[in-house]
């Protein structure tokens, strides 16, 4: 029997030519009516494919059913059973390649907008002051130290606190959230939301010590003397550069610096806030990921007249979320695809003024399975720029491995940790998130945090490790 076909509901959002001049969030979110209409598109599958696609196994049909029935608060609570940060994940998770890509509705029609519904429920709970603190287990008397206050560290902290442990987070910066705070811009993830989620973790009794660079302020070995177990969630915070001539000219930034100045230090409010950022007219952003999109869209909002994204492969290979590419283009960002910079050109005072590029074409697939871009001889050309943001990826910061006895890393400098328990080569020390798997996603960092918290709990309480689970498809997906 054919059901009445309801199309996938769109979120209302700020018009492109308005929002490119402000830092306010782009989509406004679903209204209750839109959310219920979207929820009614779900088939509530007996064997839901979407749940298998979710890295933290949210009971997706259950929370969607609650929305459909109008119990929005209940939907939020259902989400929080598996995901402590749904307002964040609803905004930044790549649902189109996780839960939504496998949703059965998507076979003949568009998939259910799971991410938008997640966001709606979490926002509803927060905006209506319905957030409650779950009951904690009785105090165990055990102490855990978490290094890094990003999504991985926050997840471990929340889980361990609920289990009754005494938890302290050591964070290098002066604010919590990791990339959520310093990297992802306000217009995509409002900082008030990050703060609300961090408050939730603090209300569970977690203490956060800021300005504590572990490896310098205290070493991991010193922490081991004071705590029963340790989690390292220090992220992938080391920016890569292209290693082309001219990269140290003024006006050339890593995406980390550009975004940190704007987000964490509020340079967009200079001189009310003291940290400046360059005033640009023509900006080139190098790279094709989410970070590049965030940088390009930040550049527009900082007043740039022209923003080009320079990416060496084609649109199909761009790692950025489709939605973000789409948003960027709507706002006026120009994609220069199959283009690679070869040199940055400077003026007398050491400021970048131009960039030499070469056109590329796609050759044979490389190790990543994507077709390798190869330069087209004789196709060099120059463009005028006054700001370049290098956004070609991040690696692992070596500070902790360098200052910790017996902590093994792989050849890229990532900490080696067990993929089930997250334990490192150092007993009692666990690691997860970007520091282990390289720059990835918020949800994978949280997934690792959950696994680590369970293993840390067993370790601290002297509970033996269960037999390792047989590998299923799901686990392999996570790699």
């Amino acid at each position, binding site marked *: 029997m054919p059901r009445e076909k309801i199309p996938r509901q769109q979120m209302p959002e700020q018009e492109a030519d308005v929002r490119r001049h402000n830092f306010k969030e782009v989509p406004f979110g679903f209204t209750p009516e839109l959310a219920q209409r979207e929820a009614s598109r779900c088939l509530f599958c007996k064997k839901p494919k979407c749940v298998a696609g979710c890295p933290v196994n949210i009971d997706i049909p259950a929370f969607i059913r609650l929305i459909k029935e109008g119990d929005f608060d209940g939907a939020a609570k259902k989400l929080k059973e598996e995901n402590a940060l749904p307002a964040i994940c609803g905004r930044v998770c790549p649902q189109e390649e996780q839960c939504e890509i496998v949703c059965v509705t998507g076979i003949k029609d568009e998939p259910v907008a799971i991410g938008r519904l997640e966001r709606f429920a979490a926002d509803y709970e927060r905006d209506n002051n319905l957030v409650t603190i779950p009951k904690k287990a009785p105090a165990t008397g055990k102490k855990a130290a978490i290094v890094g206050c990003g999504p991985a560290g926050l997840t471990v902290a929340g889980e361990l606190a609920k289990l009754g442990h005494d938890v302290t987070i050591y964070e290098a910066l002066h604010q919590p959230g990791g990339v959520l705070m310093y990297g992802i811009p306000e217009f995509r993830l409002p900082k008030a939301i990050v703060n609300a989620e961090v408050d939730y973790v603090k209300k569970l009794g977690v203490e956060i010590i800021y300005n504590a660079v572990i490896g310098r302020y205290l070493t991991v070995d010193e922490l081991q003397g004071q705590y029963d177990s340790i989690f390292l969630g220090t992220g992938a915070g080391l*920016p890569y550069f292209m290693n082309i001539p001219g990269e140290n000219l*003024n006006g050339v930034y890593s995406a980390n610096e550009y975004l940190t100045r704007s987000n964490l230090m509020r340079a967009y409010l200079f001189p009310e806030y003291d940290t400046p950022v360059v005033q640009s007219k023509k900006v080139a952003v190098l790279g094709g990921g989410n970070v590049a999109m965030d940088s390009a869209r930040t550049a527009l909002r900082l007043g740039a007249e022209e923003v080009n994204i320079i990416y060496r492969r084609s649109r199909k290979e761009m790692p950025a979320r489709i939605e973000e590419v789409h948003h960027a283009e709507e706002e006026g960002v120009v994609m220069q695809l199959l283009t690679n910079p070869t040199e940055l050109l400077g003026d007398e005072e050491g400021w970048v003024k131009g960039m030499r590029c070469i056109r590329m074409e796609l050759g044979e697939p490389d190790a990543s399975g994507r077709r390798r871009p190869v330069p087209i001889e004789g196709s060099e050309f120059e463009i005028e720029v006054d700001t370049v943001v290098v956004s070609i990826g991040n690696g692992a910061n070596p500070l902790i491995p360098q200052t910790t006895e017996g902590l093994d890393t792989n050849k890229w400098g990532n900490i080696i940790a067990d993929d089930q328990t997250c334990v490192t080569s150092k007993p009692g020390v666990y690691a997860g998130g970007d520091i282990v798997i390289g720059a990835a996603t918020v949800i994978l960092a949280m997934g690792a945090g959950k696994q680590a918290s369970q293993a840390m709990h067993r370790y601290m309480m002297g509970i033996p490790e269960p037999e390792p689970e047989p590998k299923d498809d799901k686990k392999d997906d996570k790699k």
Partner: protein
Amino acid sequence: MNKIVMKKVLSEGVKEFEIESPQIAKSRHAGQFVIVRANEKGERIPLTIADANVEKGTITLIFQEVGKSTMLMGSFNEGDSFLDVVGPLGKPTHTENFGTVVCMGGGIGVAPMHPIAQALKQAGNRVIAIIGARSKELLIMEDRIKAASHEMHISTDDGSFGVHGFVTDVLQSLIDKGEKVDLCVAIGPVPMMNASCKLTKQYDIPTVVSLNPIMVDGTGMCGACRVTVGGKTRFVCVDGPEFNGHEVDFVELVKRQRAYLPQEREAREQYQHECGHHNHH
């Protein structure tokens, strides 16, 4: 946390603060620095740790008021607190017994030179200190450098105190007198470090400089602090701040330090206009 227990004016626009920071006092080594943020809207300002007192749990910071942020910090008084103090950052000075070491400090660079001289003295070196300033009133830490060295020379650009000339002139005369120098440490304004390195290069004296580029996080996360050393890009906050002076691209460093001059001027003028001297709360 971060309470100011002592404030002193060392010379025109140069202030010394002793700040409560027990853990940093304990874990810091010579050559390391902290990043300070005065208040909620403040910039992150890197400052070398000029001294520390483990028993009192304090560190000493000395800085010159050059822009809005340092002027604002300079307006703080005993009993006030800086919002954030992060550290110790950077690699400690490599200390061993080299033999005879000349420690040169120019202007405000005398402050970061102080703990290095202390550490090198303690490691058994014969430490010859050469400190200089534009004029007598601008010379700082004379007594403390004297205590941290075996022999101290002073120079002023205008001849108002000590040798009339630059610290490099003093070094030149020491070399001319036949002093065998095994290592030189030069810290100060870039032109001073550059001139020192040119001189020591002629005599093949290994020379360490401590660099002060613009920084943001100070943990290797942003790359704002990058410099070219020996043809390679290095991050001063994690790979430094000390480098082989003979390999540093000082020309690039100066240009990078000037990246925000217009904004710095704007902020300073607005600050001076708005609040005159105090009122940082």
